[in-house]
């Protein structure tokens, strides 16, 4: 099987610091992958490189065998850490906007999810709370039929009940052809739905294993394991 995301000796330097220091990684379709690591370990940088928003300083990155660019945008559904949607639009307008933009967008599914989360389609983004805005954005991203989902901190501002619904949505949308990468600090909430955990530290992959392997080897949850490894 061909990896959906592959990194070879990937480096990314910003003016004042090195964000990624030689990442080698292959992620395969049909997996839900947790991208974990302390603040500043390079999670968002890696995701932005895969989304084609940044270019590598050196090394290579491939999405479905291609360098990130115009051709991979249609394969990748990216949830940024910040909202970028115009806030004068209503929920329905952003759905229409996405339907125009992406051929693989399922407007019906998006409408259903809005309804399930009790968000009125006529509400303007400007008047929504932070958590509700995040929900809308996640609905948009998950309603595409993409091959690679890149979710940068998708559940941070969302209440626990909605969090469960969102994780359930990720599970029911599970597609053996697609991979889902979730970067998050809320490890305890997501670890049951993950296949695989990739832990970054100082811009390098320090661990790449399945959740059950970590539990079997260390006799604790991934959450507890993380707290021990990165104890301050």
């Amino acid at each position, binding site marked *: 099987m061909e990896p959906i995301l592959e990194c070879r000796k990937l480096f990314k330097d910003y003016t004042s610091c090195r964000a990624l220091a030689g990442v080698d990684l292959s992620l395969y379709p049909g997996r839900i992958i947790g991208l974990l690591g302390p603040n500043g370990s390079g999670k968002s940088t890696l995701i932005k490189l895969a989304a084609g928003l940044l270019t590598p300083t050196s090394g290579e990155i491939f999405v479905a065998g291609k360098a990130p660019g115009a051709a991979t945008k249609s394969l990748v559904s990216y949830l940024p850490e910040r909202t970028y949607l115009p806030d004068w639009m209503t929920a329905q307008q952003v759905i229409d906007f996405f339907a125009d933009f992406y051929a693989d967008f399922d407007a019906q599914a998006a409408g259903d999810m809005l309804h399930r989360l009790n968000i009125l389609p006529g509400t303007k983004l400007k008047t929504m709370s932070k958590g509700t805005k995040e929900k809308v954005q996640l609905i948009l991203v998950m309603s595409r039929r993409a091959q690679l989902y890149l979710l940068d901190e998708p559940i941070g501002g969302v209440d626990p009940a909605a969090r469960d619904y969102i994780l359930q949505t990720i*599970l029911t949308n*599970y597609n053996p052809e697609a991979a889902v990468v979730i970067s998050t600090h809320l490890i305890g909430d997501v*670890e*049951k*739905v993950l296949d695989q955990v990739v832990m970054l530290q100082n811009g390098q992959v320090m661990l790449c294993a399945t959740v059950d392997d970590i*539990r079997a080897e260390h*006799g*604790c949850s991934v959450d*507890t394991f993380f707290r021990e490894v990165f104890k301050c």
Partner: protein
Amino acid sequence: MTWDLKSDRPIYLQLVEHLQLAIVSGRLPAGSRVPPVRELASQAAVNPNTMQKALQELEQSGLIQTQRTSGRIVTEDTDRIQATRQQLAKNQLDAFFEQMQRLGCTRHEILSLVEKELSIV
């Protein structure tokens, strides 16, 4: 059924135990259809691949069989189900005796405590 999963042990092992219990207790009767992987995964809120692994484990132990066209069914071999049930009961007993020994109970004490408990129930 509710899936109460602990955070310190591998998830697939807990799923195996959960399904074993459903089978030996008759909630999933001999010969009945096992729900599809996705449905079970969604119910338990776990990754479908983890659920798949648990079902494969149960297949290997013979509690579940895969049929070419109609998915998975619980085995019709009631002896095997009975044997699994006894094994699970034995595990519970072993754990119980270990706890009682830690409390310093003698065989005699354990026996009289169990008898007393049984006469109440």
